[in-house]
């Protein structure tokens, strides 16, 4: 498969972080340039977004969940 601009292998590693809005601006721009031309990464990103959309339904709260280790 052809490799679109922006380094497909590098960008695909960033897609999870991008879906979580966790990238610095240079990485964000790299992902955005790449997904414009790469349907494979666009599709993966859409899948990550579906998952993060579900996260919004379970908020973080102050209770420690059963079995969860709380680190110091």
């Amino acid at each position, binding site marked *: 498969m052809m490799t679109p601009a922006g380094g497909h292998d590098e960008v695909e590693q960033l897609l999870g972080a991008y879906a*979580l809005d966790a990238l610095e601006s240079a*990485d964000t721009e790299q992902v955005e340039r790449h997904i414009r031309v790469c349907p494979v990464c666009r599709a993966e990103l859409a899948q990550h977004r579906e998952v993060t959309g579900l996260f919004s339904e379970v908020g973080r709260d102050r209770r420690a969940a059963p079995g969860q280790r709380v680190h110091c």
Partner: protein
Amino acid sequence: VAAPNTRGLDELSDSALVVAIARWQQDALAEAYRRHAGPVYGLAYRVLRDPALAEEAAREVFLRLWTRPEHFDAERGRLRTFLLTLAHGRAVDVVRADTSRRRRGERTALEPTAGGLGADREVWGQEVAGQVRAAIFGLPDNQRQAIELTYFDGQTCREVAVALGKPEGAVKSGLRAGLRRTRDELTSAGVEL
């Protein structure tokens, strides 16, 4: 005049609603708000932990839908997901602004891994919320913590790398792996994505 229109609108699909919004139909925007404002506000509140800031973020999301409806592409996903994506991006921007950091105090810095997932809203139902929570808890610690710190606290990979004492590249690939694994878990549990 609005009544028959409004009655028709609740039968429209989300995509058709966005088409109506693009034609400047205010009641279509009101219907989109009725359907999705709860989760949009809920997410903004979870990240911002401040009702006024969350309301402002939610308002901006719907204003953006009103002014730039063409940014929603029905082929790329659901309207709900699109709006939540906007809400998260907006909330995270606010978190990263200095004023908000001061407003939120030092809680995030002091409790990087405390807390958990809970306080679900009824929108998707308890069952799905429970499955999502279980899927996240099933992740390796580092992936779960990285997801919580980025998604709920608005931290960047760089900040998470410092908090967890991991290389930034490992955090990035861990987030991707964590989202994929969560998706697989949810799919096996029969959650519709």
